[in-house]
């Protein structure tokens, strides 16, 4: 794994970002002139009331969508001018997502789920070894590799999801309430895992409603009505 970053630089920069969802009943202002710098190697907890724009923020950083106004720079690349394919490639190579509902592909086995991002890159040499490696790193035993996601516990599924997010070795992990569907003890083991990954150099942004979970992070940001409070 990459060594801890000695000279911090903003790996994510949001400049005056606004996101408007046009809806039939009227536009929804999800993000309102939000600016934010995230240094490489940071572990940030994002908190705020429901509907304040936390998931929207994470999705924009993850290049799943582009801001309505303002600019986002990921690893030095401004996203607003990028084509859909370029955005996708940027996401594929730099960002790992972890969701509250795990979001594993039900038709694929554990191993295939983890392998999927590699296949999108044309299955580089040593893919299988890389999958076993990350699955081992998140604490899953090989006897589970051939199971379907539905045959696993919530904690195990989230570990698979984290392994999948890690397999391309992205610099950034975006976690949207990763412990929201887990009991406290399982949630804590997942947080310990994320903490370890952060110490290995991953930049982590984590959305949570739970102040105890936020305690694992090095910095907490509060979002209210679409901007940093």
């Amino acid at each position, binding site marked *: 794994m990459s060594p801890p970053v000695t000279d911090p630089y903003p790996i994510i920069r949001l400049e005056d970002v606004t996101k408007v969802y046009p809806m039939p009943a009227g536009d929804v202002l999800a993000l309102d002139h939000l600016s934010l710098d995230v240094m490489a190697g940071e572990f940030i907890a994002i908190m705020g009331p429901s509907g304040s724009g936390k998931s929207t923020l994470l999705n924009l950083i993850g290049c799943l969508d582009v801001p309505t106004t303002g600019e986002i720079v990921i690893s030095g690349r401004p996203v607003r001018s990028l084509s*859909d394919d370029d955005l996708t490639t940027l996401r594929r190579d730099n960002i790992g997502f972890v969701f509250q509902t795990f*979001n*594993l*592909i039900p038709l*694929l086995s554990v191993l295939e789920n983890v392998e999927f991002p590699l*296949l999108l890159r044309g299955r580089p040499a040593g893919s299988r070894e890389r999958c076993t490696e990350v699955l081992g790193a998140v604490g899953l035993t090989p006897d589970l590799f051939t199971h379907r996601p539905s045959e696993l516990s919530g904690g195990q599924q989230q570990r698979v999801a984290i392994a999948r997010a890690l397999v391309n070795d992205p610099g950034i992990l975006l976690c949207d309430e990763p412990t929201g569907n887990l009991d406290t003890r399982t949630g804590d083991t997942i947080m310990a895992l994320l903490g370890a990954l952060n110490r290995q150099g991953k930049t982590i942004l984590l959305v949570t409603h739970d102040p105890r979970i936020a305690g694992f992070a090095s910095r907490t940001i509060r979002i209210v009505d679409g901007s940093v409070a």
Partner: protein
Amino acid sequence: MILFDLARRNIRLHWLRSLLAVVGIIIGVVAISSMGMLGNSLVLSISDSLTSVGDTIVVSPHVSSAQGSFGSSGGLRITERQVEEIRRAAGANTVIPLRTGADRITVGNEAKTAALYAMDPADVPVLLEKEGGIYLRYGSGVMVGKKLAEENDLKVGETIGIGTGDERARIVGILKERGIGFDINPDYALVVPDTWFASRYGERDYDQVIIKVRNLEDIDGVKAAVDDKLNRREQVVNVLDTRKVLSTIIDAFNQISTFTTAIGGISLVVAGISILNVMLMSVTERTKEIGIIRSLGAKRGEVMRIFLSEALILGLLGSAIGGALSLAGGYLAVNVMLQSTKYLFEASTLVYILYGVAFGIGVSLLSGIYPAWKAAMMNPIEALRFE
């Protein structure tokens, strides 16, 4: 490959509706190819039973509407002078004037009626082929059409009674079977020397003049020349060449064949709609999955490939099975309609199986395009929010 695999597994998961879509394609492919095979066999059998000689011009008296269109030629004939003009128009090509008639014949104790063609014995080898015996000579011998000979068990050297009197004629030769022709149909007829015909039925003008063209390119020129000589003031004779008649008839049957194949095509369109339906269902159900794989870095084109693969698998399955069953379907259709499968195993007939299969795959892919495009254009965030 994993994209293809995802498509394959999804089909397995929803095997019943996938099966129904495949059955639709099978029916469509079988319909289109067996209709095509039937049509082609029909055209082949028609053109085979027609004498396909294309080097013949037939000149016959023109019956104007004033003279009534019933009755063979309304007593109209082609005169010796007109024949001379035709000879001049035909140049070096062989001109064969014919008289036709019918008379009672007796074979053993059995009496029946047969058509008679009277011509100069020298012209017989130009127009007809013999199967046994010798060609007609000047005198009193006759040649017998193949079918007439077969049905009455007539042999070279035997004699048959002609007319009601005790006139008998010796069979000198038997003609080869000729099929339905546009000039003469000697299969059930007797071919007799014109001198013998004249002595028995009296001198009279000709019923028909046949021109055998040496060089196929000359056909139009000779036709025009005859027309020019005889039909200048008013239409006296009809001039038609067998090649044109033949192609008109075959064209007509080809059109019928195209039409029936198109009807088969409609069932394939219906099958395409059922694939479209299955695919749209699949896209909607898998919205969340589309969001997931987009979040993992799958491009629009890659999402599109998953769903096109699904359509392709359904199409390939249906078309392959349909293609195999087409042989049976075509066999059945041809056997029922034509009572013979002689023309089934011809390349030009069997190629319709390939057409059917190609159309099946094409229609499936075409039906997959819109759902696949819809999947590819989904907004990843909204897809991820879908439950």
